[in-house]
């Protein structure tokens, strides 16, 4: 058992890859295959995914395997690979039904939220359990500005695109508001306070209806947020003359948002700002002694993370056409944090992989069944999907506590912890 566990602990996609690389690289043909192989394999895989039988599980399995293998190969510097991946992601929903497209939208949306939270948790090391607050702020901002009955009802035909940066700015301000009181807190204490903050926003949305403290002064029938009834009939945005009415069209919006967020997060990570965050995460006092204004940089992390959450919220509201306080509960924060941790903290590609697994898998499992002839479990997925899902999460955390695709630093930290533990054992 212990050897098995050791073997599993040793297992890592990048290590397997490195080993294969070392072995193949010895022959000239192997080296050439390594260098050019992905230019052949990736397009083939993309075509296969597009043409896959129109059975959801199969298609999803394909999509995930391809995305996962792509992410694991880590050839982010390879422009060709990115183009192929982009084309594949754009093509993917073409043959899907409404339900599948909904899942795809959620995966992309949560990947974007994960990228935002990863800035706060993975880069700056500030554990935030109230991320839903910023998501809610973005969603309600768009809803209240545009809904004709409850909110302002101004024309969003083209101004949806103006609301998006507004949502980012407002969410960033809320992020700073949260940041100021928690600046001195670390670790567990920070987590509890942010948890409370997330709850406060959710409860406020629920209570600021016609009888709310502020709401009753704003509007006697709807209050500020229309309470638990929610804000409905949010108009659909337009992209020039194209009405973005379905999850399919909104998927492209969130996909572009996701790519932009990933690009920005990656650029910031390798800059002076990213290094300052890393330093704060490693040793806050020493970072300050090297001249980093830790107050300013922690607030900045909250603000940037929050702005991406706000952007996601506004897109979510536009896609749903209606928002309710119950959409913004603790589950959202926990899911986003879980996908960051499982995917691999500090790494954008890990976060995307985490979203595929955490958000995509539970729905894909609905269709999962086993039929071996002598034993047939045809409702396995529908009845037990969350059990399977939970077991998968436990397995990932036991076998790879650093996440599936950790950043180089996280991997190093966990390796160190492992060595120390091994030394203690002897």
């Amino acid at each position, binding site marked *: 058992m212990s050897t098995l566990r050791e073997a599993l602990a040793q297992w890592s996609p990048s290590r397997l890859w490195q080993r294969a690389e070392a072995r193949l690289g010895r022959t000239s043909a192997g080296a050439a295959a390594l260098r050019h192989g992905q230019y052949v394999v990736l397009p083939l895989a993309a075509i296969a995914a597009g043409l896959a039988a129109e059975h959801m599980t199969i298609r999803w399995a394909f999509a995930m395997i391809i995305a996962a293998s792509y992410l694991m190969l880590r050839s982010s510097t390879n422009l060709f690979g990115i183009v192929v991946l982009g084309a594949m992601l754009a093509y993917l929903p073409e043959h899907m039904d409404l339900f599948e497209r909904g899942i795809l939208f959620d995966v992309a949306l949560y990947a974007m939220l994960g990228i935002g939270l990863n800035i706060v948790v993975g880069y700056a090391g500030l554990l935030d359990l109230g991320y839903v607050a910023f998501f809610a702020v973005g969603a309600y901002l768009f809803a209240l500005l545009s809904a004709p009955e409850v909110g302002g009802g101004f024309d969003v035909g083209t101004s949806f695109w103006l609301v998006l940066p507004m949502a980012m700015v407002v969410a960033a301000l809320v992020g700073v508001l949260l940041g100021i009181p928690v600046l001195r807190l670390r670790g567990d204490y920070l987590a509890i306070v942010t948890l409370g903050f997330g709850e406060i926003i959710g409860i406020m949305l629920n209570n600021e209806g016609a009888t709310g403290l502020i709401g009753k002064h704003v509007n006697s029938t709807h209050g500020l947020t229309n309470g638990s009834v929610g804000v409905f009939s949010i108009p659909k945005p337009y992209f020039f003359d194209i009405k973005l009415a379905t999850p399919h069209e909104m998927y492209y919006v969130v996909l572009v948002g996701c790519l932009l967020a990933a690009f920005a997060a990656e650029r910031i990570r390798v800059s002076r700002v990213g*290094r300052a965050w890393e330093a704060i995460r*490693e040793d806050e*006092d020493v*970072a*300050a002694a090297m*001249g980093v204004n830790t107050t300013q940089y922690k607030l900045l992390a909250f603000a*940037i993370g929050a702005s991406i959450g706000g952007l996601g919220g506004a897109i979510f509201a536009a896609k749903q056409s209606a928002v309710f306080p119950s959409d913004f509960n603790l589950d959202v924060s926990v899911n986003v944090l879980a996908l960051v941790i499982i995917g691999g903290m500090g790494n954008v590609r890990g976060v995307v992989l985490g979203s595929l697994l955490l958000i995509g898998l539970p729905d894909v499992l609905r269709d999962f069944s086993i039929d071996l002839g002598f034993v047939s479990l045809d409702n396995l997925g529908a009845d037990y999907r969350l059990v399977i899902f939970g077991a998968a999460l436990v397995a990932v955390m036991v076998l790879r506590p650093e996440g599936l695709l950790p950043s180089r630093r*996280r991997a190093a930290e966990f390796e160190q912890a492992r060595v120390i533990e091994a030394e203690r054992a002897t």
Partner: protein
Amino acid sequence: MAILSVRHVGRAFQGLLALNDVSLEVEPETIVGIIGPNGAGKTTLFNLLTGFYRPTSGEVWFEGKRIDGLPLDKIAAAGISRTFQNIRLFASMTAIENVLVGAHLHLHANVGTAVLGTPQVRREERAALATAVELLNFVGLKGRENELARNLAYGEQRRLEVARALAVRPRLLLLDEPTAGMNPGETAGMTRLIRELRDDLKITIALIEHQMRVVMGVCEYITVLDHGEKISEGVPEVVQRDQRVIEAYLGTGQIITEGGG
């Protein structure tokens, strides 16, 4: 004109006086040593100078500005940087990234320009990398740029701390036991490095050190602390013969008899 002037500084920790009425002056471009037995308050003094603690009494002046009570980053910006007795590198970052964090104050990229990747940001980043490589070469870490700090050998980690502190471009560098735990070869290298810092880079250096050979060899002026108080100061030859210093290290040599029994 002294570059650093510590005036009647005291620091109490819940009634315990870690430092009591300590004054000292450091002249520009000198190497001064701060010595004393364990618990004498040497590191506490460094922590007061760099803003880790606020003094409970007294003042600290650096280049004509009062700096006691300023936050850590403002003191770094004023031109003081330090290394740590128990090495405090950013362990999961590479050697060169550690140095680049030290250069934080001299770079100007912000979130906006970093995302856009403006030409200024790229130019400044290239220049910072070149400087960082130079600093690593200077402290003898050539070729170790991309090694994680935690994977460096002990002596290398101490030198990386020096490189990181130098990236702040300090005019006063505080070294807290720079040769602790080093073998004789590494110690000689560090001593040479300290001299070069002063001679080539014109940096004023204050160091805490336990190895008397290093202190007497490299320092031009020495301050001796014991139980939080300054008991002696002067050039090495004088301090070495000071009776109070000898007593502080070796005891008084008398058997103290107490009344009653």
